[in-house]
């Protein structure tokens, strides 16, 4: 209802949804960053 405070359960569910949504986008992003770090490491590879 408008103006009514959210219950503890509702707030936990809200934040749970936020965590799920963030995880769904963060995982592929983290993978991409790892791949880029691996590529960037070639710049500092000793054999080059």
């Amino acid at each position, binding site marked *: 209802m408008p103006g009514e405070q*959210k219950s503890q359960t509702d707030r936990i569910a809200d934040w749970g949804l936020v965590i799920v949504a963030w995880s769904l986008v963060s995982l592929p992003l983290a993978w*991409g960053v790892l791949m880029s770090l691996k590529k960037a490491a070639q710049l500092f590879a000793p054999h080059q």
Partner: protein
Amino acid sequence: MGLLSRERIVAGDGFNRWLIPPAALAIHLCIGQAYAFSVFNLPLSRTIGVKAPASGDWKLTELGWIFTLAMVVLGLSAAFGGKWLERVGPRKSGVVAATCWGLGFLVSAVGVRLHVIWLIYLGYGVIGGCGLGLGYITPVSTLIKWFPDRRGLATGMAIMGFGGGAMIAAPLSEILMKRFAGPQSVGVAETFVVLGCTYFTAMLFGAFLFRLPSTGWKPAGWEGPRAARSLVTASHFSADQAIVTPQFYLLWCVLFLNVTAGIGVLGQASPMIQEVFKGRITENAAAGFVGLLSLFNMGGRFVWSSASDFLGRKRTYSVFFLLGTALYALVPITGKLGSVVLFVACFAVILSMYGGGFATIPAYLADIFGTQFVGAIHGRLLTAWSAAGIAGPVLVNYIRQYQIDHGVEKAAAYNVTMQIVAGFLFLGFLCNLAITPVSDKHKPWSDDDGNQP
């Protein structure tokens, strides 16, 4: 109320605004693939020959137009689609963007399979370009409405995703092409199909997660722009009102000059480091350099944009332009000193500010013109990106080639280019310095006037 209507997505009380950044990221991580399109160029140049280019295969010069066309259409679709976005809301706009982006890949796949390049121009270039433009501005506008108190952080989160999208797409595309390649195929058409379907799905997820704040909504405890921040308006200017102000054109120049300085160099990073440090940097190491620059490009989008919430937008851009001028002027010296570390460090910071410039500009627009129509205004401003996307590489290549044709050694040919680019950045500094609040003679938008924005 249709499923995609604006009224349907007005958030109720207590909606958690932290659901909006992942929606924005979902879209930008997909359209960010555009910066990784070049991984397809060599395979596309041997779709007939497969192992090597054969008679009838496309030339790299023909293939280069695919990306250029997409960038031009990005700017145009953002400019023309911005007002429509503000009217229909981010869900409908996001769904259209998802459809265009996904369909662009599928049409291009047909073009590859039938070996008809204009189908790829139409697919990726035009249809995909529309997806790029709409996809770019949709999340930014919504984020600024939800985070008026932290505009830089909000736009940084979304636009960081555009940089991150290329980091995902480049290795993913290579894995997919390897998986699908065979004696008769380079694997590009199949890769396009997989990417198109994946991106369509992911962008739909983002589009349906978007909500709009109700009229008059403010974050808890935030009273509005502080009077002390003189550049931050409490009014709202429509896109048509914004484009008759000098501030719009100064900001256009700010974005154009910042992007021109970075984009030309970004395209030359690999050959440049190999030529300046001949014999010391291998092709693999140069690829590593490009990878490192991508990381700083992405990181800069979030870091600089978030920092602008504390520094102020004008001060942040002053740092970009002054520090950038100094670093570009320093680059030839690092080459003369033979210092790879300093050379890399200069470019890492330059690229972070290149990314930061993209990410901070929507927040700057919101400060000057208000938050209500920032999507439409941002869309029009992105024509500066399209212009820079053509001007930057042309300028850098032309200056370099001119010098080589006049006997300058390849390694030294970049030096004059760096100095000219440093000059561009100083010009950008002057444009930024000239930005003031919109004068009172420009009346802000009011729905009491009964005008359409």
